[in-house]
């Protein structure tokens, strides 16, 4: 014990030349000065403060719309007339939720959208993985050219193909073969087929990006791994199923998360392929419920906007749950993909 008490005294004498007469430790003020009043510490502290201010500020910018949506969803009509009410409702009510859920058939849309998004995400995850693996690991003729085709599908705005896409699936035909055989074309609008066909080929919404991510991921997987499997007598496909698929779980989770949530909030394909009479999906609940009668209301613009925001909140609520569980895969999967060039 005693020897330990001696040590700091000696050290201080050497370094700073303090006149150490006392028996116990250096006084608080001197310790404080040596530790906190240095330039390095000041710099560090300033940086930390700056960092947190920035991060918290931007987090606020990101979260604010959601906070506002939540606040607005509980407001009653009177709150919109009250000038003092901004975020915290004075007369909280659940009427908006009730009206949306009952009149806009929220649960029907929820179920339909869930089925559609889940199926699309699963199919897209599997096909983009297979395609990405094909592009990453096999050197056949035209590999590069076909990969440029994938990039091309990413760059073409799908809005530009809107008319052609609709006509294609309204009068579905493959180079006139179907018409030749049966005498007429097939109407695929209001079925799952258009999205199924596009997903199957890895050509649906943003699938080019998924193929790109998968390809980058598989390029990072060392060839020796597969060679070892080949030496042990496993074929290409068996190797893929037994070795590669278990390896690529985080990446698959990332792509699934992307595909699921982007399909969920999509309002391009789902409104084009499912006209109002068909599948009842999320975009269709974005109407003002009639029981809330907005029309003659004084602050009708803000009120109807708040109702729309509540609907948005209801749309993203299930996604939020998915995000909470899937968020760690997002960073992990992308981190492991090692995207370079």
């Amino acid at each position: 014990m005693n020897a330990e008490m001696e040590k700091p005294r000696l050290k201080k004498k050497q370094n700073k030349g303090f006149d150490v007469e006392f028996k116990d430790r250096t006084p608080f003020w001197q310790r404080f000065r040596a530790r906190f009043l240095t330039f390095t510490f000041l710099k560090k502290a300033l940086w930390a403060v700056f960092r947190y201010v920035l991060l918290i500020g931007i987090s606020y910018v990101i979260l604010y719309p959601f906070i506002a949506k939540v606040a607005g969803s509980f407001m009653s009509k009177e709150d919109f007339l009250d000038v003092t009410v901004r975020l915290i409702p004075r007369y909280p009510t659940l009427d908006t939720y009730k009206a949306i859920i009952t009149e806009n058939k929220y649960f029907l849309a929820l179920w339909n959208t869930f089925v559609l998004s889940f199926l699309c995400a699963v199919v897209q995850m599997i096909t983009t993985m297979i395609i990405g693996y094909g592009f990453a690991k096999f050197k056949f003729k035209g590999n590069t050219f076909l990969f440029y085709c994938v990039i091309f599908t990413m760059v073409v705005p799908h809005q530009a193909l809107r008319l052609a896409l609709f006509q294609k699936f309204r009068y579905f035909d493959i180079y006139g073969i179907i018409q030749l055989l049966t005498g007429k074309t097939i109407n695929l609008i209001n079925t799952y087929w258009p999205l199924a066909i596009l997903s199957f080929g890895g050509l649906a919404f943003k699938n080019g990006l998924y193929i790109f991510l998968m390809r980058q991921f598989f390029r990072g997987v060392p060839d020796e791994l597969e060679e070892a499997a080949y030496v042990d007598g496993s074929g290409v496909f068996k190797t893929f199923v037994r070795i590669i698929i278990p390896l690529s779980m985080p990446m698959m989770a990332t792509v699934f998360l992307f595909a699921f949530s982007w399909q969920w909030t999509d309002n391009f394909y789902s409104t084009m392929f499912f006209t109002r009479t068909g599948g009842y999906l999320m975009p269709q609940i974005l109407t003002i419920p009639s029981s809330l009668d907005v029309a003659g209301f004084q602050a009708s613009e803000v009120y109807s906007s708040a109702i729309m925001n509540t609907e948005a909140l209801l749309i993203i609520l299930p996604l939020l749950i998915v995000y909470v569980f899937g968020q760690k895969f997002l960073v992990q999967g992308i981190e492991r993909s090692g995207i370079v060039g």
Partner: protein
Amino acid sequence: MNQAVKTKPARLPKRRSGKVASLDRKKARAGWWFILPFLLVFFLVYIPIIFDSINFSFHTIYLLSGGGYELDPVGWANYYDALFTDAHFVVTLTGGIQQLLLEVPAIVVFSLFMAVLLNQKMVGRTVFRAIFFIPVILSTGLIDSIDLNNAFTEYSQGSVDSGNAIQGSDSLMSVMDLQNLFAGMKVGHELLEYVVNIVNNVYGIVNRSGVQMLIFLAGLQSISPAIYESCTIDGATAWETFWKITFPMISPMILVNAIYTVIDSFTASSNQVMTYVSSVYENEGGDVLATAMYWIYFTIVILIIAAVAGLLSAYVFYQRRD
């Protein structure tokens, strides 16, 4: 003729090496099986769709009452209408492209900066990461279109009520403050407007830089810590380390992100050109005209992407890994 004879012997060695490459060739054949789904749908469905879309833009389309449609060739009339008859298209187009060019650097720089921040060790990093990637998942499609002109969020921030002409009341900084600041610094008016635009649009920029942040984070993680260690030993400051190590190592990602940002923001439905053209699409007989507009826009953006890629790839640094 002579050349044709000359090329023949060049092919032969390839065939002779067939024995060595037999496993490779077997593998190459398997590669076709893997990309088969893409090939099938791409050539059977997607190429005809692209072709149709281009074809439609040179026609007028009539829907027949008995089902089916009829095309009436009109040559370049749709393109002529889009460029010279339509009063708003060219103005919107130039404005949109100008905005695109201004926003791309802002998004790339912002996402790089945030990725560097989020990569540092600190308390609450996972929470901040989770918050920063919320827009990737949630602010797309439907939600994006609702947030585009959201009367309620503006109301709750108090800007509707104040009703005065100063636009800065709902932004982080007042325009007047910035104006004073920049007037003192004697820099151009254009720069001022650029900064004011970005500050006013900070939500849009934060919202659209999620994927870019992810890509940068992945890049930052892939830099070996040993390099940083040796830098610290040699006495480099954090500033020097960033510019001499992090920046060159991450430059391929800057290229990827710049291109991704261009693609992403020009296909986004919140884009003003896209909004305008889809409003044209809804008009009577506007569908072919809109398709022509989309293709004009697409051509210009492809040129921009090529220019960006060409410009940046001159400065990209690739680490040799063997």
